[in-house]
């Protein structure tokens, strides 16, 4: 019913809109991938620091436990 009321776009306009949409979607996707790359790189640095802290804390706790015996 809607199709009878709303006139459809001419084929060339529809094609141009689709092309623009496709390029915009690909651009957004590329931006997302780049942002994800930098976010992962930053998280890796902080995750390594966290891991080193945890290992050091575990070592200190182990040493303290051995010392108390």
């Amino acid at each position, binding site marked *: 019913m809607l199709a009878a009321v709303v006139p459809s776009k001419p084929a060339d306009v529809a094609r141009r809109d689709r092309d623009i949409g496709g390029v915009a979607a690909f651009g957004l996707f590329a931006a*997302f991938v780049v942002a994800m*790359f930098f976010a992962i790189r930053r998280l890796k640095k902080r995750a390594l620091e966290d891991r080193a802290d945890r290992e050091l804390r575990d070592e200190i706790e182990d040493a303290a436990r051995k010392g108390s015996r």
Partner: protein
Amino acid sequence: MNTFAQLVDLISPRKQPSPMSRTERLYVAGIAFACALACAAIWGVAAGSGSGSFAIRNLASVPMLVVVSTLASLPLGMLALRLTTAEGRPSDLLVAHSGATFAGALTMLLLAPLVALYQFSSAWAGPVVAVLTVILAFICGIFVFVRMLHKLGAVGSAIVVPVVLLAVVQLASLAQLSALAPPIMPTRTTFGHGIDGIAVSTEAVK
């Protein structure tokens, strides 16, 4: 840090050797999602292998479908988790979802040779096999998602609403996005026509 081993440990039923900090979990989630996108891209190449241009276009369009459907569903699932339960953390849902996406995409990657073989050799069986691998990967993903949430400490009945909501919204958005996006295979399947195609085929079955 062997992140990949950590990631495989996280999606397996094995217990984690040591609890991870929030940053470590987010890092593993990021790696899992990046690996999932890479796996999906390779599956896309296999699904479009019948025709050269489809294979190249799928390198971007299949990961794009995964990203957009995730962006459409994950925030809603996180909000549902926050509203329905006091125990679960939204970061747990993020990690579990990334791990599940990775597990599903890995399933697709391992089935990609079969998809490529059928796409090359049969015009009607190729798309059917491709859709079946996606359904299998989705089921595998849901299974891993629930198990990971249990492993990360989310309690049983409280996660039902967010998990069901997330899975339904992701499936619904994926089905409709595949109709909007450029075709992945040379022939469009019922799912490739979105909700209209599914409704028509349901009426035909009736």
